[in-house]
């Protein structure tokens, strides 16, 4: 099992550019999450999904969109990147009725 994987590991964008971050899990988990981590702020929930075809807003959703077309994948999109979106992005998955969230290795994004 690879667990939770994230692509890419690192990316530099210019303001206004768009990109998609991919999260994949091979544990057949129902729940998937996208967090961003900034110094001194801990992890903040951007969007989440409780199942294939469903998504919902988290704590800081503005400027991001997500899709969950397949159970194993959760995509995070930035339509027009801003310097405030410079951060480390973590994806996590969780099985229904289970307590553990499994995190991916993270994607470091720099927006110039």
């Amino acid at each position, binding site marked *: 099992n690879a667990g939770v994987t994230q692509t890419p590991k690192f990316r530099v964008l210019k303001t206004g550019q768009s990109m998609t971050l991919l999260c994949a899990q091979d544990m057949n988990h129902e729940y998937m999450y996208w967090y961003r981590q900034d110094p001194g702020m801990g992890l903040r*929930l951007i969007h989440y999904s409780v199942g294939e075809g469903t998504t919902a807003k988290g704590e800081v959703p503005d400027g991001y969109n997500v899709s969950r077309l397949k159970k194993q994948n959760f995509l995070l999109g930035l339509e027009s990147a801003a310097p405030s979106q410079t951060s480390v992005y973590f994806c996590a998955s969780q099985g229904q009725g289970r307590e553990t969230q499994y995190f991916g290795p993270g994607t470091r994004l720099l927006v110039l």
Partner: protein
Amino acid sequence: GQQVMQIPQYQHVQEGEDFTTYCNSSTTLSNIQWYKQRPGGHPVFLIQLVKSGEVKKQKRLTFQFGEAKKNSSLHITATQTTDVGTYFCAGRRVNYGQNFVFGPGTRLSVLP
């Protein structure tokens, strides 16, 4: 504002000393989780507490959930260099769905 707080923000200890981090929520929590993140790594689940006043131990780590279910603590006895990292608490708020709100974390440094 931050709904889950942690103190201290940083802690430097000599190897062998004890360490405690405290987590406080402005609202009642249905349960609380603790995660550890090594430098450059991703958060790894440690434990979940559910019951009021619950105490759980994992080797040198002791976790407590407050009677009012608004605070929690993690205590490490006789720290080792392998304990280095940032410790996050994450609370699930009552009547706020199944998502967790993360605290900002406590970064622990252990001097050999």
